[in-house]
């Protein structure tokens, strides 16, 4: 009962003191707001870049060309062999007739040439189009596919794919590092602003100690105050994230610059980002206050 009374008083006092020290509170809130906006932008950018790289990587396909004399039975055996491999995501068969039809349909020139071919003259081969689970192992998977009987040639954009994967890997790591660094810098900025707020109230802490407030009793209101500042500071970044990103998404029709770059759907993405921002604001606000107060408790 007593502890409950003290806690409810602490919460009341925290709210009071946010408003009584309004100019200082405003400084902390603005600092949190501005830094969290930057964090929000960088999180949204990073996650979109990551998703783009993943989509591109998923699009990479191994094409296995089967030799010209392959029979239906052989094809079935090849499919069984392919299914035995562990890095296979999806297998699609495309017959030479279908490929020829597509080619003829796509251009008049092809049509003229290809319509003159007699049976057995066509150089076009049946293919299996294979998507892999792990793009890093695409080389060894392609090799294994090449060893299957009746598989003539295996192509997956050798050389280029490996380069793409390593470049994307760097992009992902760098952007993640940038976000983490930014969050740490944000934390320091916010903690320092709160430190200044509390520095101007060291007299209050001194009086609290003087009248017999225990250390925990002194810490709690400041920690709650930090929490309130953190929550208030994250409101604008959250609104900007939810409405800003959705508006941007709608304006570009979900794609950026070209059809190639597809943006992440706003729901539920913006809510996850908002949650991250809120948590950063709350944790940093509380932790910042706690650190700053502790400095004045050592007597």
């Amino acid at each position, binding site marked *: 009962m007593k502890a409950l*009374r003290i806690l409810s008083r602490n919460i009341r006092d925290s709210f009071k*003191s946010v408003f009584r020290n309004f100019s200082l509170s405003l400084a902390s809130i603005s600092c949190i707001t501005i830094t969290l906006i930057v964090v929000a932008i960088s999180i949204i950018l990073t996650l979109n870049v990551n998703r783009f790289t993943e989509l591109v990587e998923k699009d990479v396909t191994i094409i296995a060309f089967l030799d010209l004399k392959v029979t239906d039975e052989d094809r079935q055996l090849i499919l069984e062999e392919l299914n035995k491999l562990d890095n296979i995501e999806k297998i699609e068969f495309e017959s030479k007739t279908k490929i020829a039809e597509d080619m003829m349909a796509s251009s008049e020139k092809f049509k003229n040439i290809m319509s003159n071919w007699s049976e057995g003259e066509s150089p076009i081969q049946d293919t299996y189009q294979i998507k892999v689970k792990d793009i890093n192992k695409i080389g060894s998977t392609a090799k294994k596919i090449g060893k299957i009987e009746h598989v003539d040639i295996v192509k997956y954009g050798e050389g280029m794919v490996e380069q793409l994967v390593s470049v994307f890997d760097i992009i992902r790591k760098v952007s993640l590092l940038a976000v983490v660094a930014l969050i740490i810098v944000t934390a320091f900025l916010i903690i320092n602003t709160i430190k200044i707020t509390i520095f101007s109230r060291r007299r209050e802490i001194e*009086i*609290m*100690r003087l009248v*017999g407030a225990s250390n925990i009793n002194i810490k709690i209101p400041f920690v709650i105050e930090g929490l309130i500042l953190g929550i208030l500071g994250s409101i604008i970044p959250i609104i900007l994230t939810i409405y800003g990103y959705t508006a941007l998404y709608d304006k570009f029709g979900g794609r950026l610059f070209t059809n190639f770059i597809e943006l992440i759907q706003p729901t539920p993405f913006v809510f996850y980002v908002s949650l991250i921002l809120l948590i950063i604001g709350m944790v940093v606000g509380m932790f910042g206050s706690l650190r700053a107060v502790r400095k004045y408790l*050592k*007597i």
Partner: protein
Amino acid sequence: MDLIVLKNVKKQYKTGVVAIHDLSLNIKKGDFVFVIGSTGCGKSTLIKMLYREEKPTKGKIIVGGLDVAKLRNSKVYKLRRKIGVVFQDFKLLNKSTVYENVAFALEVLGLPKDEIHDKVIKALDLVGLKHKAKNYPNQLSGGEQQRVAIARAIVNGPKLLICDEPTGNLDENTSMEIMDVLEAINKLGTTIIMVTHDTFIVDTLKKRTILLDSGRILKDYEKGTYSNESIKNTK
């Protein structure tokens, strides 16, 4: 019975300065004691050790049964709840009302609202400021602010009231008003230790007076005054 016992207390600051040398002192419950002496004689250090703002380097300090020297930082509040402290600069929260300033000392103890209200009004009544409960400190005169600080210090019913030059910032008339309040509190049974420079107050009240010089007790008068020859000589 002794409320305060100091035994062979020595205080040496990190800078090497020795503020208190081998000092022993007993103060009885209900006493009113002045601590006087020239600037730098150690009187501030002495009372700071009583409310554990400073720790003695050597010796024993017992206040109201608590071994102050052995008290850990995190347990200091236990001592502070037994004593009240009043300073020259009042140390009030300027953004809180008079009522809130006084109530603050009880809120940290987790008392119920009604009990806090009764005690705060009683304390404000004792210092004659009941009618200013809703004012803010900067709307009050210096003497009134000091009375608020006294109300805050005694609202919890402490056994000991420590006053560090409470009249240092006040004129003679206002000082005497503060002394009247302190005497009234003393008569209710609270022990008071007061550091002062004010010759007029010491001369008029004729209480036990401890004269410090270079960290040692030079004289301890039963009813000493500044007009005493030896005190004058040390000034």
